[in-house]
């Protein structure tokens, strides 16, 4: 095991619980520049549209969609790498 943090480990997390589309994507757009280029930002969102719209945002804005998982309490959590 490497002692350095995993490269997909987010350095920031946006809590978008309770926000309806398109708010989670707007929050992501606002805060992606908070992390350095190459770093990952997480978005926690319970709005079902986020599952499609966050990868779509990455595609349209040239960012990298790393993947989706769940928080410990079962809310969807999306990982995005800032590429520029």
């Amino acid at each position, binding site marked *: 095991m490497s002692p350095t943090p995993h490269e997909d480990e987010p350095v920031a997390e946006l809590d978008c619980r309770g926000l*309806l*589309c*398109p708010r989670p*994507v*707007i929050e992501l*757009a*606002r805060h992606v520049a908070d992390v350095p280029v190459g770093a990952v930002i997480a978005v926690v969102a319970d*709005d*079902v*549209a986020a*599952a*499609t*719209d966050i*990868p*779509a*945002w990455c*595609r*349209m*804005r040239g960012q990298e969609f790393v993947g989706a998982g769940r928080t410990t309490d079962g809310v969807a959590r999306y990982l995005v790498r800032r590429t520029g």
Partner: protein
Amino acid sequence: MSTPPAVYLDTASSEPLHPAARAVLEQAFDRGYADPRRLHRPARDARLLLDNAREATAEALGVRADEVSFTPSGTHAVHLGVLGLLAGHARHGDRLVASAVEHSSVMHAGQWHAARGGRFETVPVDASGRVGDVPADATAVCLQSANHEVGTLQPVGEVATATGAPVFVDACASAGRLPLPDGWAAAAASAHKWGGPPGVGLLLVRKGARWRNPFPGDDRVDERSTGMENVPAALAAAAALQAVVADRDEVNARQSALVDRLRAGVARIADTEVVGDPSRRLPHIVTFSFLYVDGEAIVTELDRRGFSVASGSACTASTLEPSHVLAAMGALTHGNLRVSLARDTTGEDVDRLLAALPDVVARIRQDAGL
């Protein structure tokens, strides 16, 4: 400021009544009121009108008259078509396969099948909305002729050739506008989508196809229909269908060019995704999504400015779920608009919409703090 004239751009939901249907409807209500099964003169009149409606519909679609049944809606025709093929092939299995972008009526029929112990699964589509491989060992396959939200045409003939299963074709989005694709064992269409009156669906069952009524039957003229036929509306629907088929080459070419103009114009707005196949598509539908835009806000603002359009965004849906079609394509679901042209939509209408959109989008984005 005077209110601009309303521009109706939601014909994919429902087309205004075609003048040919209107002319027939009034006469048919006078002559087609009786029960076509009875033996008296008014009943014979109604029966004649019903038979005429069936023959005219069959001729316009290029099918046999005994393959046509009138139903109370397109949705009911879909349910009968899907579940009737499954019932007819129950000895061979219970595995229903549908593309992931079928109309909700197909999905509901699949869920109904699954709730009764059958198997129901969907197969993915590519980014344009077109289906890929379909399992060869399905009991029945559902594939639309064209997608009702994004307009993409499906390879029905190829899928039907590749699969051994009977294919149900939901032709509601294309009927009248385009010839029926080859390869269907059963198909459905809906008159109000081509300018017929609402309340008329078409169930087509191919001669020789194994189809069994999945619902309680009835003792009508036609064994596949239930309840008294809406004879005047069926005749008006047939008249509209004949008229639409007669001038579709001209109308399709005109609408398709206007859709090209819309696609190109909308693509110039920053952070916009134009969805669906740019060429292998229905002539009259185009869908696009604006990043950071609330779907309900844009539909409401366009309505205020005189444009009637639909949206697949979650906030505009009764279910509050985003369009399963856009989701299956991986397309942006928020800020979504579906524009579907009417027969009389002009270049000026399209240009007015294109002139309004950048400002409407910019204002909504500004309100969101972007």
